């Protein structure tokens, strides 16, 4: 299967070099060889030798086999300036050390200055090759680290920040009522689930996992989000390509069933403790942990709440031996293709944050593999239907909810556009502009 892309001829990197087919080839080759980041999306279907520079502005990809999600994966493969990257290569690192704090892009913004762990200051590229969608586009933005939700809210109210991404659901409601601030709200495809370690400890037993699924109070999730959420009705996000409505089969709180499963597992009285790991400072996840604690107490399971910073969570979850019993995870499909969701349940995702359950079912693995190389959508859809049903039956996680995506912005910051493929709090700053009529004096 072959894909050919014709590049525009006016695209420039920030240092003035043209964006050419050679740069595209370099960037894809580099990602494939480093085998990190988005590499998993194409590793099994594209070799460096399969990337052909036809001419300066034409690039062709010869895939090893058909791969239905190819076009959906491409937005994740950013183009870097090979001249800048390779000029800073050290000991064959492909410029990785240099790129930790430098960029080699052609995008609408460039780095002005930054301080590790505090802020990144980006400024707009005045002569950006695509142009700007609005004449009063922002001159740039400061990406300022404020870890605590309450502090973010306060920072927005006191004029320390213009945009907040991570306040609590209650505080979003309050901010939406505050003059000078608005809160856009969208149905997202980000799912929240509590992944259970399927390889080690008590949760390796599917009967215990089902007991936990039946013990959990799902309506509490909606309450925690103040009604700004819907429950999952399948392991796939509602409305996503390939989604099937499995409402009648979903686990919902039923303590009798939960106790029956505990008895079948050989623990009619429970009598053990599980660890629930969540992101430190993320209040909603802590509250969900309290709900879990209370629900599982009903079937004799104690739950220990363990807040960790995200990198530590990912590090622990990377291997089944160290992965927590229960871990709170939000997952956003990274591309508009069901493969992006199904891959969470395939062992090729070992090490990724969305694979902290370490789930493995040979039938699901085979179906995911087959669906990826099947081009006919009707055929693929049947496979994803079966995949969803099997995963639900195996219960590798508590399938939770999809919360509405919200941000809080000062009203003079306009142009916000939502795309459900963007990750949890991400905003495309390219579209933002300043409404000067609403801009109060500094």
């Amino acid at each position: 299967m072959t894909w050919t892309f014709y590049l525009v001829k006016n695209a420039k990197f920030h240092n003035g070099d043209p964006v050419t087919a050679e740069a595209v080839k370099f960037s894809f080759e580099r990602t494939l060889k480093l085998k990190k980041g988005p590499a998993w999306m194409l590793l099994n279907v594209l070799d460096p030798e399969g990337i052909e520079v036809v001419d300066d502005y034409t690039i062709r990809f010869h895939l090893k086999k058909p791969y239905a999600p190819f076009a959906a994966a491409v937005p994740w493969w950013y183009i870097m300036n090979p001249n800048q990257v390779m000029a800073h290569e050290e000991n064959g690192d492909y410029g990785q050390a240099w790129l930790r704090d430098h960029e080699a892009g052609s995008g609408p913004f460039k780095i002005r200055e930054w301080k590790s762990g505090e802020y990144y200051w980006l400024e707009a590229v005045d002569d950006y090759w695509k142009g700007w969608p609005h004449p009063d586009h922002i001159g740039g933005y400061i990406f300022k680290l404020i870890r605590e939700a309450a502090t973010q809210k306060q920072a927005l109210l006191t004029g320390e920040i213009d945009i907040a991404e991570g306040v609590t659901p209650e505080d979003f409601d309050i901010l939406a009522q505050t003059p000078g601030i608005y809160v856009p709200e969208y149905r997202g495809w980000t799912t929240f689930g509590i992944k259970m370690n399927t390889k080690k400890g008590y949760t390796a037993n599917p009967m215990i996992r089902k007991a936990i699924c039946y013990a959990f109070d799902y309506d509490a999730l909606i309450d925690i989000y103040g009604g700004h959420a819907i429950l999952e009705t399948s392991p796939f996000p509602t409305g996503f390509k390939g989604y099937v409505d499995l409402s009648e089969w979903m686990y919902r709180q039923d303590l009798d069933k939960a106790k029956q499963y505990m008895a079948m597992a050989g623990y009619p009285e429970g009598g053990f403790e599980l660890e629930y790991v969540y992101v430190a400072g993320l209040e909603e996840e802590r509250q969900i942990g309290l709900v879990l604690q209370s629900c599982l107490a009903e079937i004799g399971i104690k739950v220990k709440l363990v807040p960790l910073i995200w990198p530590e969570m990912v590090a622990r979850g990377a291997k089944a031996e160290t992965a927590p019993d229960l871990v709170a995870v939000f997952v956003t499909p990274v591309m508009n293709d069901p493969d992006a969701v199904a891959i969470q349940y395939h062992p090729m995702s070992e090490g990724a944050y969305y694979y902290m359950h370490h789930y493995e079912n040979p039938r699901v693995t085979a179906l995911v593999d087959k669906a990826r190389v099947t081009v006919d959508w009707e055929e693929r859809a049947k496979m994803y239907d079966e995949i969803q049903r099997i995963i639900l039956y195996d219960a590798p996680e508590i399938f939770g909810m999809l919360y509405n995506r919200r941000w809080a912005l000062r009203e003079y910051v306009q142009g916000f556009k939502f795309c459900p493929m963007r990750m949890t709090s991400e905003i495309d700053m390219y579209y933002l502009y300043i409404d000067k009529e609403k801009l109060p004096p500094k």
Partner: protein
Amino acid sequence: MKRFLVGVAALVVLLPVLAQAYEVIDGKIYVVFGARQPVFTLDPSVHYDWSHRQIFQSVYDALLKSLVILPNLPPGSPNVGKPLPTL
């Protein structure tokens, strides 16, 4: 007393925001985005999560860009809490 405190809290919430975060330098307006999650590399080949994507989307281009746009849900909208139709 409790009623008084609730009243004060409501007043504080409804007061217009007075101080402004944005920076003006050489006539350009820079806005400030508060984020909970740090960024530790500008290398789009080695890592991604939302905070890294935030920066990568700004700094880099790709051959294609995802532009699926869904409608806003206005406050009190009957759509809030209901699923979108299956695609």
